[in-house]
């Protein structure tokens, strides 16, 4: 499940329709319309009552949904002996903020976080570079065999990462890459998914712009760097976010290819092994789990406006 995020699931050719990829402008207008309706349409009394109930329902659902995380957060601040108390409590006899600090001295937790950041950032950069370039070639340039090669690309989207982890491990052996950063970064950075996404995005840019640049004597490289990329910021951002999440949360592949956890372990690996060696320390496990949620949650909050858009663009994501 984890590594599959990067390979991102089969989106066969037909799916372009299923994903419904309307030009960004049209979608935006649709949203405005809706907001207008929300703002101006007069509401009848039963409608108002219903709306109140809708709010109550949604907020109750949200509270239930969030309960495990809230309870985990409070558990992270309990003394360990009071984690399982009968009856359960939210706040124990004392509030131990220090658990969040103790986590870092119990295992090489800081190394795991550092590795995760490094691998996720480096991997995202590779994916962005490779995908935008290839997307440009498929979406904006004309060359012989383009469509055939593109179909080949799309076909690889069908292959789940779980199917190729075993042979991928052998390939890593051949390269002498077992237990290296390269092995964490590259193998799943060349999936067709990013290319597919970028191609779709680039095709939405009016060709006239490019033609104008061509007339001025700009070659494909300049056009790519100066016209296409600047116009595709949001698409690139979306790909970047989801690629980052994919790398950040990836578990199966790092589990296989990392040997020396203290050197190359990423956060999910660290977290899993951490739970083994802190068997009884639920307080620390919860503190570690909460800490591991922070970076991605911040990322999501910062980019929440793009989330719906990104999802609707391709339905890719971190799972």
């Amino acid at each position, binding site marked *: *499940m*984890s590594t*599959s995020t990067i390979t991102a699931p*089969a989106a*066969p050719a037909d799916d372009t329709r299923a*994903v*419904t990829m*309307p030009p960004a402008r049209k979608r935006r207008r*649709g949203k405005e319309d809706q907001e207008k309706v*929300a703002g101006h349409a007069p509401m009848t009394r039963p409608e108002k009552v219903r709306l109140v109930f809708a709010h109550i329902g*949604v907020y109750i659902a949200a509270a239930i*949904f969030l309960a*495990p*995380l809230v309870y985990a957060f409070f558990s992270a601040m309990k003394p360990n002996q009071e*984690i*399982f*108390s*009968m*009856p*359960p409590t939210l706040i124990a006899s004392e509030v131990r903020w220090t658990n969040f600090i103790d986590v870092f001295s119990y295992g090489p937790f800081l190394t795991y976080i550092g590795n995760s950041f490094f691998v996720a950032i480096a991997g995202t950069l590779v994916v962005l570079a490779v*995908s935008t*370039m*290839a997307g440009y*070639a*498929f979406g904006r*340039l*004309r060359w012989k065999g*383009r469509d055939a090669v593109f179909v080949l*690309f799309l076909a*690889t989207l069908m292959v*789940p990462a*779980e*199917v*190729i982890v075993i*042979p991928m*491990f*052998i390939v890593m052996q051949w390269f002498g890459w077992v237990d290296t950063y390269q092995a964490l970064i590259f193998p799943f950075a*060349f*999936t*067709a998914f990013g*290319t597919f996404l970028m191609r779709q995005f680039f095709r939405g840019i009016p*060709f006239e712009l490019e033609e104008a640049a061509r007339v001025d004597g700009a070659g*494909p490289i300049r056009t790519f760097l100066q016209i296409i990329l600047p116009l595709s910021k949001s698409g690139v951002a979306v790909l970047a976010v989801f690629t980052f999440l994919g790398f950040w*949360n990836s*578990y*199966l592949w790092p589990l296989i290819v990392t040997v020396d956890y203290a050197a190359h372990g990423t956060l*999910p690996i660290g*977290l*899993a092994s951490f*739970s083994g060696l802190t068997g009884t320390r639920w307080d620390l496990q*919860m503190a570690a*789990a909460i800490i*591991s949620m922070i970076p991605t949650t911040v*990322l999501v909050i910062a980019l929440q406006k793009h989330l*719906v858009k990104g*999802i*609707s663009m391709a*339905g890719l994501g*971190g*799972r």
Partner: protein
Amino acid sequence: MSNGTHTPRRGALAKSESRQALGFVSPALAGLALFTFVPVALSIVMGFFDWPTVGEKTFVGFDNYVKLFTDSPDFWPALRNTFVFALLYVPISVVMSYLLALSLHSRIRGRGALRVLFFIPVVTPMVANVLVWKMLLQPQGLVNGLSQTWFGIELPNFLADPQWAMMMVVMMSVWQGLGYNMLIFSAALEQLPESVVEAARIDGATGLRMTWKITVPLTSPSIFFASIMTMISAMQVFVQPQMLTGGGPGNATQPIVQFIYNQGFKFQELGLAAAAAWILFAIIIAMTAAQFGAQKKWVHYEH
């Protein structure tokens, strides 16, 4: 796929464009060849070998496949578990997230914040989610604790009971993936042509009827898309059982990917693992194809 809207250009230019295109596409092609085509080909080959992690590899023909189907006590249960998981998880996840997306309509205050909230488990490392749930589901944990304190009912030992363990893996997964499908549906709902919705409303369609007759059919492409994606990810479930139940009790929650992992990296039989992976792949393709075949019956495209 292609729409050749370009005006025809002179040959030399086209040639140079071809060359440059090759430059643009070659990193992706090289990477794909190395990290997808080679492993895929290799996994076919490995499936026909007795391929220990260390030592001599020997060609065994279809022995690995035969062994899986006839002589591997965990293989059939692993397949069964994977299907049970997918059959429970996919419909529950799709229906619940669709309902959630419907409820989070534009008149709900703070829906941006709520969306982020439902999305947190999606972007959190799965391992962290599992740890939280494992704590809740301990016999002395919150769930049983509340049940005993409030209702005086002692709940089963969730993760150690064959049926309950699978239910809990499903439940935890639904919770984790809810926000993702919700966003897919939210995006689809926002794109509903307002005219159609208004027209239906004027015709007197309200509430459930409106949802069932108008909204669901109009968003069926995204429902289809979400179902396929969710199904594919369900077939590949690994972390939740691995960490939450350890595949147990017995092998009651061990899915096929965990089986592959164990064969390959615990029992050092990479050939057997590769063969099992191919069976999983074949199943995923067959199921995806089947869903595409069935989509004509219920998915409505605007075009």
